[in-house]
């Protein structure tokens, strides 16, 4: 067991380092940050001053080693553009994103699973058909299209809700809806098919024959086993949400880390960009690690590592 955890952790760290390095080199291909800061008509002297203050005059490998050693020491560097530690900038913008994301993740999981279970239990009935229609719509239409449509309907036409920025709970309603529809759709599809599969197993009938309530059969025996594939996908959903937030945040002008990352890329603010990516990869790997470990917690067959009987 220890070995399992250790191996996975090492792999996770290696992944983080690799992607981080990839971003390091790729971002430097996108253009010259000094030019961004100073503009097209900078003088040679001001160019050299700025470049050396940002250590951009050093050979590429030296830059890399400097940044890497900084990462290891915990010094994430200063934003080129804002002249402040990147960690501070990030933290400042974390609020809106976290507020939004955490609610989305919890709500979409709960609602998605609920829809999936209902659709499976009442399969081929009207409820199931309605849910399936919804999931097709939800899976195919991108979240920013929803965002724009929702703004059009609720902000322009009905004038019920604000269309941008933060300030109150009402500002989060439309972003929440735009971000949730997709994940609810895919989680409910998956839950539905996993449930249908599980409910056709013989142990479901054995459970019924005990005389326990139908809901106990469906939840304790059905859902309990159907959740495995769903847990995998939930992990992926969390990651997608963090990534997909970029566009929605932009559409709603939310000052979150989505917009921060996009701006950092646009302005060639390498340290800031590097930091945003780093946090995202770390979250991603951590979430995947949790998913892996949760399997072992939930399924005794995986704990034993051996699927064959005796």
């Amino acid at each position: 067991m220890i070995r399992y955890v250790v191996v996975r952790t090492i792999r996770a760290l290696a992944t983080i380092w690799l992607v981080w390095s990839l971003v390091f080199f790729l971002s430097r291909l996108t253009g010259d940050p000094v030019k961004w800061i100073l503009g097209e008509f900078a003088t040679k002297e001001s160019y050299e001053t700025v470049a050396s203050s940002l250590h951009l005059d050093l050979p590429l490998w030296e830059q890399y080693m400097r940044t890497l050693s900084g990462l290891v020491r915990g010094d994430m560097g200063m934003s080129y553009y804002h002249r402040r530690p990147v960690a501070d900038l990030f933290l400042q913008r974390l609020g809106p994103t976290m507020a939004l994301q955490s609610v989305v993740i919890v709500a979409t999981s709960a609602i998605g699973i609920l829809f999936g279970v209902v659709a499976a239990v009442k399969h081929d009935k009207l409820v199931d058909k309605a849910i399936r229609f919804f999931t097709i719509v939800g899976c195919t239409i991108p979240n920013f299209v929803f965002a724009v449509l929702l703004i059009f309907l609720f902000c322009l036409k009905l004038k019920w809700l604000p269309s941008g920025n933060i300030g109150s709970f009402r500002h989060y309603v439309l972003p929440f809806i735009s971000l949730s529809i997709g994940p609810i759709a895919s989680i409910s599809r998956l839950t539905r098919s996993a449930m249908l599969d599980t409910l056709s197993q013989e142990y479901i009938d054995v459970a019924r024959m005990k005389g326990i309530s139908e809901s106990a059969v469906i939840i304790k025996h059905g859902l309990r086993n159907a959740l495995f594939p769903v847990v995998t996908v939930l992990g992926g959903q969390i990651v997608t949400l963090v990534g997909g937030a970029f566009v929605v945040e932009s559409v709603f002008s939310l000052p979150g880390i989505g917009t921060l990352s996009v701006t950092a890329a646009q302005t060639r603010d390498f340290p800031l960009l590097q930091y945003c990516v780093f946090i995202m990869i770390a979250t991603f790997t951590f979430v995947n690690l949790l998913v892996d470990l949760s399997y072992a917690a939930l399924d005794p067959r995986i704990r034993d590592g051996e699927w064959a009987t005796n």
Partner: protein
Amino acid sequence: MMVNLLEIRNLHTCYHAQNQVVRAVDGVDLHIRQGDFYALVGESGCGKSTVARSIARIIDPSYAYIEQGEILFEGNDLVKLNPRQMRAVRGLKIGMVFQNPMTSLNPVVSIGKQLLEAIQAHTRLPRKQAMDKAISLLELVKIPDPAQRMQSYPHQLSGGMQQRVVIAIALANDPKLLIADEPTTALDVSVQEQILKEIDDIRKQRDMSILLITHNMGIVAQMCNRVAVMYGGVIVEDGFSADIFSEPLHPYTQGLMACMPSIEEEKEELHVIPGTVPKHFEPGECRFLHRCPIATPDCGQREPGLEEFKENHFVRCHNVNIRRLQEEAR
């Protein structure tokens, strides 16, 4: 006269498949008394499993339904019970064992918990007593180290052991009727022998009735006192096992027995029932018409009813019954 424990009257169970209605059980009558070891025999598609599932009311309502008929258990019609009432029957009065032990237990819950669930479904025992009862159930089905096994998971047990656990679950609340749907088909012959004998011992101890669904005539001959043979959704022969084996009356029963290879005899060629089970049956003719060696024109004109040929020996065949009438006339 004893009241029958289970009395099935004119049961019709149908299901929808590809825009058609399949009449899986098309008019079945069956009487099981207390203590009977009753075999329901037939090949795939004859409806025997559907009969079992109809009794327990665990047919999938999204595509199957009991069209008509009564299933009287201790005098109460199970078909008319609402879900809550039916739950009071399942596990307490009727227990069921299924064919594949590897998929009959929830893979992520321990054996102990699954047993406790069965016990607590109908009793309100304090935990310690419930645990003790669970352990004694495992002892009853001859599982070694029962106290240890409570913490085991299904995948840690062999197929035979898993089936024993399923039997323990079915017997947890001392049901009057145990329905066993091909309980040993997926098991090795040596394990099969052990388990069947153990079920029979339990039956004798508790004066329990068993309805055994099977296609294995050997098991039927050795263990069961009564047999019903099904074909095409109806019962074609029904009687005491001794009678049916010594004098099988229906051509299908005869064919079935003759076509089985046996270690007792040296047969160059096995008897064959020609053709296969038709997908549809025309009303007004015998279901076995196209495969029957003794079919006469009358068999295509009207469907025979299940009639008592000898005492307690019923058969659904014009030509057998004609023989009886001829014999009576003498």
